[in-house]
């Protein structure tokens, strides 16, 4: 285990598996108000995809593709979206974090669109996306940071 990279077989399978896992994580996040799952669950799946890449390719290669400062900025952006939507509920409707989009014609129509109603849940998808951004960025940044630091500890 002295070399950080794994074998070519593991690298190829990880590279093939990464987009599929990421697409599944986006599905879980975007359908959080319809099916089981949500922002945190989908974000954990996406961060596990990044962790798979880190374990297979080594942290030095991944750091060139996505720096952990950018991941941290992504995470903070998610938190900012959450707070902005919450304050918009304070301004447009009655209270902080009130669901101001429910009952509106586009996003909050009840009982949904079409013959068999597909509910769209007001502002719940926006908050799901915000929390998903937070969790993907945050957990990926933690795993990447731990991998980088532990590699340097081993070298000393």
């Amino acid at each position, binding site marked *: 285990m002295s070399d950080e990279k794994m074998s070519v077989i593991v690298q190829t399978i990880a590279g093939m598996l990464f987009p599929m896992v990421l697409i599944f994580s986006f599905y879980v996040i975007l359908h959080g108000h319809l099916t089981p799952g949500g922002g945190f669950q989908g974000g954990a799946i996406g961060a596990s995809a990044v962790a798979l890449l880190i374990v297979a390719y080594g942290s030095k290669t991944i750091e060139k593709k996505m720096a952990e400062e950018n991941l941290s900025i992504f995470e903070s952006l998610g938190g900012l979206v959450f707070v902005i939507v919450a304050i918009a509920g304070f301004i447009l409707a009655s209270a902080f974090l009130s669901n101001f989009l429910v009952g509106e014609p586009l996003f909050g129509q009840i009982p949904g669109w079409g013959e068999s109603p597909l509910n769209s849940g007001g502002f719940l998808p926006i*908050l799901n996306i915000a929390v998903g951004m937070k969790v993907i960025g945050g957990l990926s940044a933690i795993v990447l*940071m*731990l991998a980088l630091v532990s590699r340097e500890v081993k070298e000393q």
Partner: protein
Amino acid sequence: MKKLAFIGFVVFCLFLFYAAYDIRDFGAPPSSMDDRIIGSYNSTTGEWEYGAVNETGANNAVTSVVFDYRGYDTLGEATVLFTAIAGVMLLFGGRKHE
């Protein structure tokens, strides 16, 4: 140590079996308490009555509780995650370029 592990194994097994004894069957219809949360379909008028589906427009009742009814808890959870990232970055951020 092995004897202690075996005793713990047996005790936890008995606890889980006791907990599984009174569980309701898989896919069994929900109780009346769930009807108040999720809402029930009135076949005569063709509308959902008194539930999270009617109030928030989300089919998944858990998401409507987590993000709408108890939105402050989710905000606190986001704050916890932000603090954890800030702690990791402060602890290891300077050490990476040594």
